[in-house]
């Protein structure tokens, strides 16, 4: 009986608590940059290094430069657990604090936020994920997904394959397998894949991996063994990646004919396979390792001071950590642009949107940032093109670490762009009434 | 003792069981039993534990399917029957171990007994107004008559799980009565009761028979009760019929004394 009364009291207190939390925390001076991250849940393995990279670079800017252009960055993580519902909740929570940009870091969450962005006047940066069609700046003025879309990625993989095969026409009659995470993310490249299959005359075999079966792929790889595809392409995520690499090795599939997209190339993906995984290829958008000056500065200003959440220094400079850094560089540069365009110190979401449209990171600028040759120059983002279709390169697992094995590969923009614009049109058609772009384009940039 | 009135003895047969056999796996529960129940009578079924009494009731209301034999109820002969059809045909039943709906009030339990008689459709049920409410009220009235009859007014809102055993039995009888059955099967209605409760229950059984004219078949261990209540008695032993007749006849029957009463001495 006592316990019951206690619980009743606790419930009353909790109800009160719910009332109280409606009061938002007092706003600090500065530019508010929320980070939607996931350090928990089934995809935490991929989420943690990215979150660390994003967080640490921005912290470094605060520590080293006192923020951007004299304005301090207020960095706040919101845990999504890669769960769409929690992500939306995070968005609602941060919305009132006037974020200048939102990084959803989940295709599912991005999709939810796309329609809201224009209404709430908050730019969304979905870096090389999310809705490929959102690269169309005329339709999606508030969404940015540089440096490349999935379709770009697929085209780059085919360029690489073509290179190895001695021409894409050599694919005629062959089979190419596509193993993918069974969800929006994994399904997105399929239209282009099918078009390629038509164009180059190969058979595309699909191997979907449902979320519940990520670690149980043996049956599926038996199919691969039967179908004997010449190349395997993977759009995997989380636990699916290492399992796939191991399974591929198990059936003696030649791993140097197994290529993953940039989300299937983390150190954690290949490490469990160890030497068995030697030869596995994956696209990458960013440089590897911690030797870049900027990353060394992160070490100095953040990690060494215990302001980072990385559990060991070795993990700084891992592929996905650097991916997080890349993401933050884009954010920082956009903010810088916005300050430059408006002349204000404390910019708003609307300003940063203009900053993104003016995004330019030349080779020299990369060097200036302390990240020489870290990524392909960002030079094609514009008002109409929110992606830019920039290049990536191929990396290979040597048994213990990733090694860059190709030059920058440019995507087949001619194949991708029409598809993309069509997709954007389709999106608009299905989401009538969709607001037309009213935001003016800055001529200056 | 309740003398079988000539009216009942000469009465029309309501249910007749012919050569029924039932077995589970290798175990024979009922072996070639035939008997009948006449309209308006109180028919007792007695026998030692494991004699197959409950199984016989289960066969009558379709819960078990006998392997052999036929059952004729109200002139209709059948070999197989689903419990639903039996209920619809007018056979109601109480159970040896009270089988009430424990989470519901006494009132709701008895109301449930009227499910068969209620037929307002789903949409009306959703609205719970108009015809559905009228129907509900009409049946509530009937149920209240039963509640009044069984003198359980004070407990109608009590969740039956919390009632003492004797009252639970009474509610269960109420639920069976709510079906307005032609044939009421009572499986040890007085088991586990004290003398006073037994007297009450006996009175109710007689009143039911008398007031509603319901034909009753009952299993009971208390011989005194059986002799007082019933018009005719069927005696089973090891799944076999060993005697059938008026209480007096049965009491004098050699087989019964040997097989049944003999056990007690």
């Amino acid at each position, binding site marked *: 009986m006592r316990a019951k*009364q206690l619980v009743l009291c606790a419930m009353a207190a909790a109800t009160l608590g719910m009332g109280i939390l409606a009061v938002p925390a007092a706003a600090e001076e500065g530019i508010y940059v929320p980070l939607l991250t996931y350090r928990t849940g089934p995809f935490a393995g991929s989420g943690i290094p990215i979150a660390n990279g994003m967080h640490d670079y921005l912290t470094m800017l605060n520590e080293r430069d006192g923020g951007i252009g004299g304005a301090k960055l207020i960095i706040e993580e919101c845990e999504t657990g890669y769960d769409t519902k929690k992500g939306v909740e995070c968005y609602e929570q941060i919305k009132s604090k006037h974020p200048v940009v939102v990084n959803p870091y989940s295709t599912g969450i991005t999709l939810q936020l796309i329609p809201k962005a224009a209404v709430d006047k908050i730019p969304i940066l979905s870096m090389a994920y999310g809705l490929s069609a959102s690269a169309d700046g005329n339709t999606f003025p508030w969404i940015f997904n540089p440096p490349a879309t999935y379709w770009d990625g697929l085209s780059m993989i085919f360029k690489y394959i073509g290179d190895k095969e001695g021409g894409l026409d050599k694919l005629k009659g062959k089979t190419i397998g596509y193993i993918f995470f069974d969800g929006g993310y994994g399904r997105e490249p399929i239209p282009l894949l099918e078009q390629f299959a038509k164009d180059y005359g190969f058979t595309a075999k699909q191997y979907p991996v449902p979320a519940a079966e990520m670690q149980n792929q043996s049956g599926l790889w038996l199919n691969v063994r039967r179908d004997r595809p010449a190349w395997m392409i993977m759009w995997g995520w989380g636990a699916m990646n290492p399992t796939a690499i191991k399974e591929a090795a198990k059936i003696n599939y030649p791993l140097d004919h197994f290529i993953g997209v940039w989300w299937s190339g983390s150190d954690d993906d290949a490490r469990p396979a160890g030497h068995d995984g030697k030869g596995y290829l994956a696209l990458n958008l960013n440089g590897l390792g911690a030797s870049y000056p900027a990353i060394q500065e992160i070490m100095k200003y953040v990690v060494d001071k215990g302001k980072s959440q990385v559990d060991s220094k070795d993990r700084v400079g891992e592929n996905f950590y650097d991916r997080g850094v890349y993401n933050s560089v884009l954010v920082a540069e956009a903010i810088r642009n916005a300050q430059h365009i408006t002349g204000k110190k404390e910019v708003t979401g609307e300003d940063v949107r203009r900053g993104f449209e003016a995004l330019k990171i030349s080779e020299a600028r990369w060097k200036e940032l302390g990240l020489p040759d870290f990524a392909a120059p960002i030079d094609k983002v514009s008002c109409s093109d929110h992606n830019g279709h920039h290049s990536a390169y191929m990396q290979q697992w040597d048994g213990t670490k990733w090694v860059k094995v190709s030059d920058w590969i440019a995507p087949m923009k001619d194949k991708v762009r029409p598809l993309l614009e069509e997709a954007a049109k389709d999106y608009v058609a299905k989401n009538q009434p969709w607001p037309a772009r009213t935001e003016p384009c800055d001529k200056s940039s | 003792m309740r003398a079988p009135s000539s009216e009942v003895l000469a009465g029309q047969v309501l249910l007749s069981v012919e050569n029924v056999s039932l077995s589970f796996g290798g175990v024979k529960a009922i072996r070639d039993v035939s008997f009948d129940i006449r309209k308006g009578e109180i028919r007792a079924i007695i026998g030692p534990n494991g004699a197959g009494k409950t199984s016989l009731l289960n066969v009558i209301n379709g819960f078990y399917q006998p392997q052999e034999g036929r059952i004729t109820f109200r002139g209709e002969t059948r070999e197989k029957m689903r419990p639903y059809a039996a209920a619809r045909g007018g056979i109601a039943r109480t159970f040896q171990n009270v089988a009430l709906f424990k989470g519901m009030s006494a009132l709701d339990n008895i109301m449930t007994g009227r499910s068969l008689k209620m037929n307002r459709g789903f949409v009306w049920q959703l609205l719970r107004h108009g015809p559905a409410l009228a129907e509900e009220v009409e049946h509530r009235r009937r149920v*209240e*008559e039963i*509640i*009044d009859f069984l003198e359980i*007014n*004070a407990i109608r809102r009590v969740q039956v799980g919390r009632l003492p055993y004797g009252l639970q039995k009474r509610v269960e009888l109420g639920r069976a009565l709510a079906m307005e059955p032609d044939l009421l099967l009572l499986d040890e209605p007085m088991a586990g009761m004290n003398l006073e409760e037994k007297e009450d229950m006996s009175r109710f059984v007689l*009143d039911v028979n008398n*007031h509603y004219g319901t034909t009753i078949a009952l299993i009971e261990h208390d011989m005194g009760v059986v002799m007082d209540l019933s018009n005719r008695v069927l005696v089973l032993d090891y799944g076999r019929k060993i005697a059938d007749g008026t209480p007096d006849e049965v009491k004098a029957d050699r087989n019964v004394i040997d097989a049944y009463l003999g056990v007690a001495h």
Partner: protein
Amino acid sequence: MADGTAEADTFPKLLIRNAQVRGLRPAIRHKDFGIWQTWTWAQVLDEVLAFSVGLDELGLRRGDKFAVIGANRPRLYWAMCAGQALGAVPVPVYADSVADEMAYVLDHAEATLAVVEDQEQFDKVLAVSERLPKLLQVFYDEPRGLRDYDHARLKSIDEVQRIGRQALAADAGRRARWQQSVAQGKGSDLSVMLYTSGTTGRAKGVMLTYDNVLISAQNGNTYDRLGESEEVIAYLPLAWIGDHIFSYAQSYVAGYCVNCPETGETVVEDRREIGTTYAFAPPRVYENLLTTTMVRMEDASAIKRRMFHYFIGVARRWGEKILNGEKVPLHARLLYGLGDFLVYAPLKNRFGLSRIRVSYTAGEAIGPEIFSFFRALGINLKQLYGQTEASVYIAAQPDGESFPDTVGKPNQDVEIRIAENGEVLFRSPGVFVGYYKDPEKTAETKTPDGWVHTGDAGFIDPKTGHLKIIDRAKDVGRLIDGTLFAPKYIENKLKFFPNIREAVAFGDKRDFVTAMINIDIVAVGSWAERNNVVYGSYQELAANPRVYEMIERHIEEVNRALVEEGVMAGAQIKRFLVLHKELDADDGELTRTMKVRRGLIGERYAPLIKALYEGATEAAIATEVTFEDGRKGTISARLKIRDVKVAPVAAALEKAA
């Protein structure tokens, strides 16, 4: 309404009037089949009409007596009215009487037919039917179980009404004839015969006329300003004058609604549902309420218990004053308001007394604790003194003049006189005609000029002008100096102290009053615990000097109270002792109903009494006791005897004046 009785001087006439004046208002409800079945006055008239005509068809004639047996059910009340419409006289019979008693009443009253509730009552009648040659027919309300009975002389009320309706339908003039028959009745006609269960001898049939009953009812209504919007619960026996007045006569006169509970067990819930505004209950009902309240509060959590007792304290301090409309400081009002929200109103809600306007207790003395508890909650509890022979009303407490130890002022049109020997006599319009077929007893009770002996001794309290009843007149004795000595009155005063469980007072034909006290082991035990008094047994505790001191203080208080009441001032307790053992029914010292057997105690404890009057300070006693397992043994002890201060008489009297 005042004119009501003038023209409508019988029950049937009142019914017709009510059906006209307030035909759509509820007249009677019965919780049956799970809901409150309600009849308006017009409907009641219709039912009674059919019933009455049916009875007529079945041979009930003017002047016939008919029995009404059963619990409080609408149709039994209607039966009375239906019979009265024909000029027949209803004789309500206690439903719990055994067949033998029933046989006596029915035989004595020469009932020609009986209206019974159900099979149970009918079986009783049937069992004695050969002793009742005059009883021709029986009608029943509840058909269950009666189907197989021989219906030659047995009918259901439904059937009677059906016959009545048929007759009405068949003959257009039937209704008018019935109305004529109603009109024939007049106020001086015999209305009802109520059998009082005397403590000795056979029950006597008290004959009351319409005027007796209805004028009394009218006076009662006026006294308490009862109108047609009252709700009462009818749960006391039909055959008792109280129910007859409260649930029948006053309702017909005032036009208020009577509610019949579903069963005896559900009275409390039914009362809560209805929310009675006017109630009557013997003291034990209130006592039970208070006891169960306290017992249940013991199980409540500490905080709630403390809150409860705190606010009950507040209520005891201010509640009665507020109820009596006295001036009370604002903070007390606020505190009482808070208490009302937290405790009093919820309590009243649980009791079903939230809407109560007038609540009477009568029959016996009520403990002042109990009385003031309910008053403190804001319930207008009052005392009433009445008798069958008076059609209830003799005296009652007016609003705002409630005292735990008086029974109030004479009711309207009632005169009261105290006889030489202290017996209370009264004269009123409600005074009965006589005992049926018993002129001797009638003459004993009723003087030719209309005064009735109540058999109770009492006096008019000089301070309040209220009547106080002290004892049965025959039990009242006198000291040698002639002072009135009412042992029960004194004992009751003593027993109102929780520490005193039992008290026996002596004094008849003696010089002064003494008392033997039994302590209450629970109350005194917990007192001992609180005050670090160590004791090993009952006997030890009883002999403890501090216990003696405490008892002595209580007795002094009683003495002071006696002085204030004047008449009893000379009968103060001068000496007392505390008994070493509990008076026990197993030893024959108490009756099974826990009444003191004075005579037996006097014999058994003769040495003690002797010591009390001889001035000794100690006395030895050995008593035989019966243990719980049935063995017998003796307890012997030396008991101390103490003198008590006696309050000065004159001073007190002056103060009272």
